[in-house]
């Protein structure tokens, strides 16, 4: 009975996903999860029948996709973690076909990236790389051909290198592998803008406002001035000046000496103490 209930719920969920009616989806999801609990299929155990595994995976995947649409990263992370044991099952028990493993994983990677959790990103990637290397031996496609996984990897590479124009290019409509990935574009653009700003403060003595528009991927010169004010820069004679740089040039050396002398004193005292214990 519960099995049928889950099936109808999944149908309804698919409908609400395609009609973008996400508000009803959350209540449907919790009902589906309760039904799965009755089937004892929310966590895969050796005794769970194959059909139940299918149902559970599909429900959780739908849940994950819906929480992305609702921009709810916590709930997405929860869904991802409950899906992980399903993805770890051998394909003899739960075939990979019909699932959205790479899509969900790619989304999770992107989420980690947008949160700046590079350690988590690489930890997950390491696991994927190892799993993929093993699959490749079995004649299946590797990580390199998976567009959902490659997208966040490309983005991370560009971010680390500093080729921010490539990140900008990737967030444009046609390069995004699926609609859900687009949700993160806004966040990523914000991230790279902040990065570029902090780089510019150090790298340029000053830049013309018209050039800054392109540099920061902003739409108008008015937006540039607004952005400059947010960062505390001064705009004069059609150029942007970075006050932090000037401040550093002035007060930097003096402060440096203070910090250094404290450090030197501390070190020397440390040596003296150590010598005392040795001699």
């Amino acid at each position, binding site marked *: 009975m519960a099995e049928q209930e889950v099936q109808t719920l999944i149908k309804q969920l698919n409908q609400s996903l395609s009609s973008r009616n996400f508000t009803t989806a959350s209540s449907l999801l919790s009902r589906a999860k309760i039904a799965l609990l009755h089937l004892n299929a929310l966590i895969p155990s050796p005794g769970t029948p194959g059909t139940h595994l299918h149902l559970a995976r599909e429900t959780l995947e739908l849940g994950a996709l819906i929480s992305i649409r609702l921009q709810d990263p916590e709930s997405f992370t929860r869904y991802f973690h409950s899906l992980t044991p399903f993805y770890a099952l*051998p394909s003899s028990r739960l075939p990979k076909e019909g699932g959205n493993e790479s899509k969900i994983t790619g989304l999770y990677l992107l989420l980690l990236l947008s949160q700046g959790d590079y350690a988590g990103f690489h930890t997950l990637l390491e696991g994927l790389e190892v*799993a993929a290397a093993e699959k490749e031996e079995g004649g299946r496609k590797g990580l390199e051909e998976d567009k959902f996984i490659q997208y966040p990897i490309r983005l991370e590479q560009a971010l680390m*290198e500093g080729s921010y124009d490539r990140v900008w290019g990737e967030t444009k409509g046609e390069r995004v592998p699926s609609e859900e990935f687009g949700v993160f574009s806004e966040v990523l653009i914000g991230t790279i803008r902040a990065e570029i700003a902090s*780089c510019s403060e*150090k790298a340029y003595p000053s830049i013309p406002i018209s*050039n800054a528009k392109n540099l920061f991927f902003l739409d108008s010169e008015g937006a540039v001035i607004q952005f400059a004010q947010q960062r505390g820069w001064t705009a004069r004679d059609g150029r942007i000046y970075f006050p932090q740089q000037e401040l550093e040039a002035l007060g930097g050396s003096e402060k440096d000496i203070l910090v250094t002398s404290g450090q030197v004193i501390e070190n020397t005292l440390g040596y003296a103490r150590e010598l005392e214990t040795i001699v």
Partner: protein
Amino acid sequence: MAETMEGVEGAPQQNGDTQQNSEEKTAADIRSNFSLLERAVTQFDARFTLRALRSISSLRKRLTPEVFARAIALTYPQNAPTAKTLLQALFESENEFRSVMSKIEPPQSNGKQEKEVIPEIDIYLGILLQVYLYDSKRYETGARFSTVLVDRIRELNRRTLDSLAARAYFYLSLFFEELDPKPPSPQSPVISIRKNLLAALRSAVLRKDQDTQAAVIVLLLRNYISTADISQADALVAQTTFPHTAPNNQVARYLYYLGRIRAIQLSYTEAHEHLTSATRKAPSSTVAVGFYQASMKFLIVVELLMGDIPERAVFSQPKLELGLEPYFKLVQAVRAGEMQGFLRIVQQHASTFHHDGTYTLVLRLRQNVIRTGIRMLSLSYSRISLRDICIRLGLESEESAEYIVAKAIRDGVIEATIDHEKGYMQTKQAGDIYATREPAEAFHERIKACLALHDESVKAMRFPMNQHRLELKNAQEARERERELAKEIQDGEIDEDDAAGDFEGL
């Protein structure tokens, strides 16, 4: 060396008599270790156990079923349950068992045989059997036998078994690693022993059994990393404390795995520290070349990721030269800042890097190649157009080049400014390095390392047992004498003049 010599000499003769003699000799060698174990129990000194364990490597090549049968028959009374379990694991079929046993004459029952066999001897024989099964590639039997063995060790719960237990767990884990499907498959049997190892860790901690604790932590880390469960390994490190008194080899292994975890998590400084200690603590003899190479590979990649270039001398060490060749080429490419060459080498040696588990780390080097390239350019040109940078580094566009250079400036890789309108990078005059804090910092690092070394050497010193009691006794006596003297002075028996008189007399 000695064992191989013996083997060579014995081979051409193939004389049944000499064979039996060498069997008897080996069995006697095994049994000579029993007295060490007995002494370890009576004197409660783990050093004797360690000595017995150390003899395993020399016995290893001489182990045969006949040797075992002989040693077991000599040690145990007939039909002892322990002897039965050992023999069951030793022989694959009943027939083999009979044929071997028939060759061995039943021992003469004299009074000595009646002595009770201590459990340490049971376990020691068990470990020898584990070694033999592993060498003869009977992994299934080994896995089954090891599970029984460690269960028995846990039941016995004797502190004199600690170092033996550590060894038994080590082989247990080795056997499971060899079972199909091998890691990193998520269905690998190694996952099934995690529960056992965690339970062993728990009881080892509760029993203050530091040998097993250290060994099991290392095994668990190895287990997690083999299936790429990095976050679980990280959680284990965060939840446990590695015992200070662990043997050097375990410390080296622990540091190696810790370094690997930290490298994956991008904490390169920490990873570098751990891996450096791991390579330094690795035994310098030829025994553990594999470990040394593996940790060296990671160390090199981590150094590259930190923006340093490993020294040339590292690669010319005879035991590293061959194994590290791909890494040597990698270093050359990164040093030159040559993107095309770097990509070619990564592609060429991808399978090696995959096998070493360094592939993902190597891929991260891409940005370092670019950075080194930029640094080289900024050192050689005082002013260079962004277009030229783009061409020389093989970048996609001038805009990319501009952002990359800006990032390099912010991260302190180069000292320069960019002129956006004219599209060039202008290098700032390099300051005098001795005017900065850098030399002082480098010096400080070295002093710190020396002091730490001193501290560790002091900690590692060993003192004879109970020596301090003697000193305490002496001190006690001295104090008593002093008290008596004080009392006498107080009583006036020896007055100040008397005491001073001595000096005058001198």
